[in-house]
């Protein structure tokens, strides 16, 4: 099942660091997100975009809003002011991450 069906997302930028929230629509799906959406999984998803020498991807938990916050240093390559990217803020990154496949326990 696509992450898109279980969660929504918004992406923010500060300097060349992006942060991506993943928020479960239903509280009962939050444990599944915590288990499967690891920082390693997100790192692998964005491997072509991440700066190899940057600090690792960090994951924070916000249990009362059933959300995870991923912080991706360096992914904006110089930040909105210097980047040549079409989406220099990286605003679209969270939407892409919602394409991740989750394994639903049977």
């Amino acid at each position, binding site marked *: 099942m696509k992450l898109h069906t279980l969660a929504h997302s918004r992406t923010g930028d500060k300097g060349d660091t992006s942060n991506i929230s993943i928020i479960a629509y239903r509280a009962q799906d939050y444990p599944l997100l915590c288990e499967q959406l690891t920082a390693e999984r997100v790192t692998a998803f964005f491997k*072509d975009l991440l700066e190899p020498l940057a600090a690792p991807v960090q994951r924070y938990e916000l249990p009362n*809003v059933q959300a995870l916050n991923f912080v991706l240093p360096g992914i904006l390559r110089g930040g909105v*002011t210097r980047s*040549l990217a079409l989406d220099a803020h990286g605003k679209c990154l969270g939407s892409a991450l919602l394409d991740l496949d989750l394994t639903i326990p049977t």
Partner: protein
Amino acid sequence: MNTLRIGSGAGYSGDRIEPAVELAEHGDLDYLVFECLAERTIALAQQARISDPQGGYDPLLAERMRRVLPFVGQGTGRRRLRLITNMGAANPLAAAGEVRRIAGELGLGLKVVAVVGDDVLHTLSGEQLLDNGQTVGALGERLISANAYLGVEGIVQALRADADVVITGRVADPSLFLAPQMFEFGWAFDDWPRLGRGTLVGHLLECAGQVSGGYFADPGFKDVEDLARLGFPLAEIDADGNALITKVAGSGGRVSRATCAEQLIYEVHDPAAYLTPDVTADFSQVGFVEESVDRVRAQGASGRARPEQLKVSVGYLDGWIGEGQMSYGGPGAVARAELAREVVLKRLALIGVNMQDLRAELIGMDSLHGPRSSVEPWEVRLRVAARCDERSDAVRVGNEVETLYTNGPAGGGGASKSVRQVVAVASLLLPREAVKPRIEE
């Protein structure tokens, strides 16, 4: 005061004006706040000020003021409305002068106070940039601006001086909203839990429509009613900083647990340590309760002592970006766009264009997240962009795309090209004592 009502009239410099007017007219507000300074806006404003010493403030200041000033001050049968905004950008004094002039034209007797002291350009010497380890000195002539993120102090002082309109330069976004709460409720500058809660209110409101249904809709998953008439948010706040987020009845949009959760985490790194000049806010235990439609209570924020150092945003010139785009459509569009990309890159090398960084991508295929789909689209757009030290090199990047018309593959259309100067932004930290906010009446 029992319940304080603060509305958010702008989430960025170019934001829509109509929802702010709606809030001023129908929000029954005590304060309307306009947050209009993104990371690099002030550096661009500083450049504008260099070419016009009376400029350097928000380009929409006059239009916004003409629309909302008639509702400011003490009206009959309603609350006294005051405005707080960072639209002063690189020149709060000139902006305050402009607001006084407009108020005069409209026949309004309003007190306009500017907050200054964020501009620290001339006090810097050898400080180190956090971003790349370079020193400020190494930027030399390229350095154009340095502005410290001020906290609440100057704004509180201006409100004590009975300002109807407070105009600032660089102030931390949530501080624009925390200051009126501290002033109205008499919170101490070290009342960390209340400052943490008040900062949450500011953080939720600072991007305006982003908490009331803007930047949220995903048809079939997250639907938003009447997005075209999106209303901007307001908070009803009690003396302990407990707040309810809502919007003007009858406006479009939606305030829900989900819209609040998205904005809670927006531009936050560690939710347990959201740093502002006023407090180290803790959002990690925040939750939201929907009391009724479009009325959401925020709870669980806290705070610890504020950071000892203030962040300074440094703007500097960093070359030029040249860009060109061209569309290809119909059968074989991708193959022709790929050939066009190859040709442009070869030509840039052949004519010896000097580039620090280069991107060449196909919009619709790989421009946002790298390559993925093998589906042949009906149309695709080539985009080539390069950062160059010299403007003349940047110009040639766009030219090599435009000339694909008569020199490239079949059927390119809709060429566009641009050249812009890069105003880059970096950060450094200054001891709090080195920054002295003050007001000018």
